[in-house]
């Protein structure tokens, strides 16, 4: 499922639009959450993984289910780089929060929850 990233594994031209995005995790907690979600909902997560590989910035398929967070404070610093944060809603209660790095074509997974946090209160 997840492999160690080796030297030189990044695409030669990360700006090219036909280059698929790499998916990484901004924390070990995020990776654990992703792995658990894959076990719980394999079909949904396979679909979400493919979407993140191919078109993480695309909102046209269902505009109401992908929301870029707004406001100058709503950014995340990963390896010193300030990145936007998007919220994806794969199910009515599920959420995936991720940060796309357009320059490197990396999608950083920040958190995964297939049950909306408010439902657990």
């Amino acid at each position, binding site marked *: *499922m997840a492999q*160690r990233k080796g030297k030189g594994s990044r695409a030669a031209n990360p700006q090219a639009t036909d280059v698929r995005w790499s998916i990484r995790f901004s924390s070990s907690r995020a990776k654990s959450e992703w792995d658990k979600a894959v076990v719980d909902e394999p079909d949904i997560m396979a679909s979400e993984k493919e979407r993140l590989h191919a078109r993480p910035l695309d909102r046209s398929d269902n*505009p109401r289910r992908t929301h870029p967070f*707004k406001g100058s404070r709503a950014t995340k610093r990963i390896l010193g780089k300030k990145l936007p944060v998007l919220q994806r809603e794969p199910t009515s209660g599920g959420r995936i929060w991720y940060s796309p790095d357009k320059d490197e074509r990396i999608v950083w997974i920040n958190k995964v929850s297939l049950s909306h946090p408010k439902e657990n209160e």
Partner: protein
Amino acid sequence: MPELRTMTYQVSDLARHYREVVDNAKHEDTLIRDKDGETLVMLSLDRAQRDRSIAGIASDFTRLLRAVAMSDEIGVVNSGRFSFASLLPADMRSEMVDETYAALQVAQSGGSMVSLHDVIEDWIATAEVWADTGLREEIFEDADNPPADVLI
């Protein structure tokens, strides 16, 4: 307000030139003057729904602005579809107001309603997360040493 492009017909034109009147109404506001002097407007359902939607959003937005101006937090909570503003700190609330105002102006000028709805929906998602301190920290905490794993 954007300039209203109109074509005016007499009510008798509905019988004699109904096709022209109806076709015109699909593209621009069409005025029909009755014999008693009263003027009616014919417009497409899409246009009518769009106007009503913008008016509803503008009304709630005005309630929000009034509440913010009066430092009335209860009023902010009761500002209809903008009640989520109560979840935002002052600086982000100000950014939301500026961005929504700009999107509202674009929509009112005939621009995209989708953009206006997206701006509001995106801010709602932001506010919901921002109000949950634990969730916000998990999502936005700096990542100086992320795992090296790459998902294939």
